[in-house]
Structure formats: C-alpha cells, structure tokens
C-alpha cells in the first residue's frame, strides 16, 4: 500500500513540476476550445447518469475530481456571465453613494485569510470607491488578522491604481486603528470613545489625537456610515446588536456566504442598510461601483461549480430513489 501511495505521490509531483517548468504560461483557451470542453463535460455527466441508471455508482473521489475540474477550467476560459445587481447589494452601495466628499466611514474588518477569497474583493472595491470619492475611511478589526487584511486591500488597490500612491495620504484619507481584543465589549466601549479602545494606529504608531482623519471623531455619533466585513463571530451580528440597535449606527455588511443567511433577518428588519453575501455579492458590488476585480473573475468558476453540484445532486437523488424502489 505504501508503495502504491509513493507511486501516486511521485506521479502527482511530476505532473506539478511539468506544469511549473515545462508548460507555456499563461494558458488561455479560445472560445471554440472552451465550448468543446463544456460539451465534453456534459457528455461525461451523461455517461455518469447512464452508469447510475445501470446501478454502477461513481465514488466520492470522482465527485471531488469533477468539482475540482469545474473550478479550475473556467480560469482558462474567456467567458463572462451577465450579472444582476440584487436589492441588498444596491442598498449597501446606495448608503455609500449618498455620502458627500469628506464623510467618514468606519470599516470593521472581522475576518482572517481563510475567508479572503470571498471578502477581500469586496474590501478592495470598497477602498477604491472611497479613494475615488474623497470618503475618509477609519479601519479597525475585531479579529487579529482583520486589520492586516485591510492593509493588504489598500495595497492591492494602490498597485492596481498607482495614482492613489500620490493622491491618498495615510492619516488624512484613511487610518488603520488595528485589532482590539474583547469582541462585543470593544463595540460597547467604542460607543463612548474610540480613543479608549484605540489610543494609537498600527501603521505609524501615531497617537489618536494627532491623526487628522480622526479629528472630531469621538464615537459612533461622529461617523457618517459604517461597513462591516465579517466571516463569523465577532462580526455583523454583534455589530448590529450593539452598534446599530444601541447607538443607531448606519451600517452595511459584507459577509461570507455562510454568514449571510444569518444577516438576512437584520436586513429585513432594516437594521442593516445593505448586505453583500459571498463572492456573488462581491461581484455585484464590484459591478455597481465600477471597480472590477477578483470577484468578477472568479464568478465563472463559481457558476460552473454550482452547475456541476446541481447535476450531481440530481444524479444522486435519482440513485437514492432508485435504491429505495429496489428495496421495496
């Protein structure tokens, strides 16, 4: 068994090395090749369905492989899919769009690199929009890596739009107050005083009172709008329960798709002005702000994977009912 494992591992390693050093880069399929691949995949699923009808079920590893292929291949294709803006994402955008130049937005980064594929594109689009519209951003985080993710988003925005390096001044246009431990207790204290929780910023270690963008910003009552990027607890739920309901903060949220269903009741009850759920929410936000990025690129892979999952669920259910009828 060990020998078989070693052989398989060696083959996989060789495949990756060939891909790294020998294949031409980058790979891009023409439209014709993309269509052929889609047709071949469709035929493959039809074949799997025929096998299922005959009582030969595919194993879990084949399912994993199919999903992996469905996620990978669209990266090399050149399709774009039409995208509708949902009312919840529009609500989040409208809240930002209603702000005048010079307005102050509190952005809370409550996620870690594990959730970056879903939330980082939203964050990057958010920063680009704010930088273009003279909206001042005050960043903080209730997760240790959140504030670092904010720095990465700003860096990515600046790399994509080099003029930001000259136009956007740290301390005047945005500030990163960093992470503070304490979960919802931090939000409670911020309701009285931001300075009590964040005496200094984390980029230049400047005292709170010396940072121009924080002038006259004492607590939530001095903030014009707020946005929360959240992947779990503490996150949007805690912000709504404390900051929105107690201190009447105007807030929109960007959540991972796991979190989003839990935030919908708050959206319905108008405790949130808007909600961006998962990668599709991020893509919609990119579209409505005009700041296209990774979420839009990833959406084709997402859609392919969803179609594969739907087909496999249908085939799986067919197999399930077939077994049931056979047992009867």
């Amino acid at each position, binding site marked *: 068994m060990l020998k078989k494992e070693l052989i398989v591992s060696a083959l996989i390693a060789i495949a990756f090395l060939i891909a790294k050093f020998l294949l031409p880069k980058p790979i891009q399929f023409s439209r014709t090749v993309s269509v052929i691949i889609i047709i071949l995949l469709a035929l493959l699923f039809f074949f799997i369905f025929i096998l299922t009808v005959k009582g030969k079920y595919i194993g*879990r590893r084949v399912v994993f492989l199919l999903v992996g292929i469905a996620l990978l291949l669209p990266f090399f294709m050149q399709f774009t899919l039409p995208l509708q803006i949902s009312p919840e994402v529009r609500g989040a955008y409208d809240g930002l769009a209603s702000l005048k130049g010079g307005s102050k937005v509190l952005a809370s980064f409550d996620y870690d690199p594990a959730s970056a594929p879903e939330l980082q594109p939203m964050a990057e689009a958010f920063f680009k929009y704010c930088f273009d519209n003279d909206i001042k951003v005050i960043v903080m985080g209730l997760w240790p890596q959140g504030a670092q993710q904010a720095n990465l988003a700003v860096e990515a925005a600046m790399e994509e739009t080099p003029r930001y390096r000259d136009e956007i001044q740290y301390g005047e246009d945005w500030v990163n107050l960093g992470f503070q431990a304490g979960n919802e207790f931090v939000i409670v204290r911020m309701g009285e005083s931001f300075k009590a929780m964040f005496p200094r910023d984390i980029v230049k270690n400047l005292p709170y009172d010396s940072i121009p963008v924080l002038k006259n910003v004492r607590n939530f009552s001095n903030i014009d709008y707020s946005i929360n990027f959240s992947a779990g607890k503490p996150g949007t739920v805690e912000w709504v329960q404390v900051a929105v309901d107690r201190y009447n903060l105007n807030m929109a949220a960007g959540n991972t798709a796991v979190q989003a269903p*839990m935030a919908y009741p708050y959206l319905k009850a108008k405790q949130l002005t808007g909600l961006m759920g998962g990668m599709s929410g991020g893509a919609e936000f990119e579209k409505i702000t005009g700041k296209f990025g990774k979420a839009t690129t990833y959406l084709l892979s997402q859609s392919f994977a969803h179609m594969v999952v739907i087909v496999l669920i249908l085939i799986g259910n067919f197999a399930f009912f077939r077994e049931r009828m056979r047992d009867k």
Partner: protein
Amino acid sequence: MIFGKSLYCSFIIIACFFTVATAQNEAVATVDSVGQILPQPPGNIIVADHKYDNGGIIDIAWDRSPDDPLGIDGYNIYRACGDGDFEIVAFVLPGGMESYSFIDDKVERGESYRYKISVISSGGESFSESSVSVRGDWEFFDLDKLNILILGIIVCGSVIGFIFTARAGRKLFIRKISGLEALEEAVGRATEMGRPILFIPGILDMDDVQTLAAITILARVSRIVADYDSKIEMPVSRSLVMTTARETIKNSYLAAGRPDAYYDDMVHYVTDEQFGYVAAVNGIMVRDKPATCLYLGAFFAESLILAETGNYIGAIQIAGTARPGQLPFFVAACDYTLIGEELFAASAYLSGDPKQLGSLKGQDVGKFVAMAAMIIGTLAVTVVSAWQFKFFGWLSDLMYSMFSTN
C-alpha cells in the same frame, strides 16, 4: 379732488406696505467697519437638555440665516459655561435646510450653558442672540424604552417564576425530543463495537450558552459512558472548556462509582485556531475510528468537514447547534440533529435542573407573547391597509410601539 387725494394716499399706503413687506425678505445690507457686507445671523436658537441621557448632552436647534445657502460657508456654534466667555465648539456646513440641529455631547452634568450661533461668509461673521441658559440633567430611566422593560419583566418574570415552581418540586412538562433517545443507543453501540465515543463541544468558549448546554449534556453522556465502561474522547479548542469538561466527566465517573476509570487525557486541548482544530479532529476520527460522534455546541465552517468525515468512517452521529448556518450540514450528514433551541431543551431535559427547566418554560411564555403579537399585529395591519378601520389602526400602532426600540 377729494377722490384724487384719497387715491394718492392709498397709493402711498400700499407702496409703504409693499416696501416694508419686501424689506422683511430681502437681504438687509449690514456693513461692517471695513465696508464688507455681513450675512444675516440665524435666529430662533432653541436649546434643551437631551432626553434620557447621563446629563452630558445638550440639543441645539436654530433657524437658518436668510442668506443660506447662497454665499455662506457655514455656522459656528459657540458655548459659554455659566458666566464665562463664549468659545467655539463646532462647525456645521450649510445644507440649504430651513432649520439645523446639533448635539453637543461634551458638556458637564449639572453645569449651565448658553449658546450662540454665528454664520460665516466671505463678508465676515454674524452672531445670533445668546440662547437661554440650559443645564444638562441626567434621567435615571429612558422612558422611550419602557416597552422593552415591560416585555423584559414579562419574560424574565416568567423564567424566575417557573424556576421557583420547579424548585418547589412541581413537575414541568417538556415534550419529547427525538434526538435524545438516540444518545443512550449511540453510546451502547460504541460499547458493543469496543470503539470510543467522540464528543465535540463546539469551538467557542465557556461564555457561549451553547457550550454550556453541551457541557450539561456531556455530564449525562459521560455518566452513561461510565456505567457502560466505554471510552470517551474529547478534543477541545479552548482551555476553559477543557478544565470544565474534565471536572464534569470526573464528577460523572464519581457518581457512577468508577473514579478509578477516569483520566485527564480523556479531554485534551488541541488549538484555538479553527481549522487547525478541525484538521486534528479529522485525523483523530480517521485514525481512532470512533463508533459514535457527538457534535454539540457552537460550530462554524468546520461543521460540514466534521460531519462528512464522521459519515465516511461510518460512525453514528448526533449533532446539536443553535447556529442556523451550520444546521443544514448536520441535518444532511448526521443521524439525529437537535435543531436550535432543542439543544437547550435537551440540556434541561437531561439534567432535570430546576433552573434550566424553569428557563425553558419561561422562554415558552416569551414565544407565546411573540406569537400573540404577530397574529394580532399582522391582522390589525392587514385590516387597516385593506379597509381602514380606525380601531384596528389604533391596535396596529399599539403593536408597533410595543415592539419598537426607539
């Protein structure tokens, strides 16, 4: 002649009237010492103590300057404490509104303040009259939230009442919860197969109520394990949970008369990091192959990974969580799932603790109130919108205000 004189006088009177009338609306040119045209000051300064605060907030409102918005840069707000001098405290940009307001939250409780508003333009600064003196007072109760107090008293009062009832020995009825019956069966299965029971109490700390419920159920499960002389394994991701769980299991073994069979390593700390924890638990599941997996507590993204791996190794799985996002995975992959509040009900049911039973019954009172409010409110609002009956309008307003938070 007389007619002509009358007509002439009428013209003069009318002309005077119009001159006075238009003079009220036209900018009256006030010229300063250097010949600049100053803007007209704002008027009608109203100051009041902010309602239901700790005395540190004063509300200021004023009518716009007649020159607003054309040509003015904004309003300065000046404040004087007692008989002291006025000093500037804020600046408000013009917005073309009829009136403006400002909340001054930097006052000291008990001190008296006076305010003046000035308007600034390129021509200079004009000041309003000083306002009356106002003092910031604090109110002990925020009467705007009286409805929350009443509802809170109803629910909390019910909880306390039922706790006392349970303590007095009266039996409180709780309906059967299907996942619970499977617990003993699941432990029995593990004993027969000679494989351990894996208990995962979620990934949050002891401050989360789901973890508390999980630990209560752990007491019951570990008691059955001790009785059956089976094995339990409990990797945890929080140190506080580890210490509490160890104590719980130790007490269960003691109650079962098997203190010698208990050892601390039944409960071991892995890591706080979510996916590090789940990677380790996955490894334990695949290597140790527990016959029964119990997932009770607060879970996040790791729920599907755990449930899928448990399914893969063929373990009987019982899950319970109050996190709605994770319930779908447990429902799909586990044999039994305690949905939401059933986890807390299970904890109360198994422990028989009067506090838990009383809390559950008290919460049922809260649910009853919620259901009644929904029916009455929805019907009232529907009737009002469809047929405009006045009584139902009053009723729907009452329901809205009862469940308002402002």
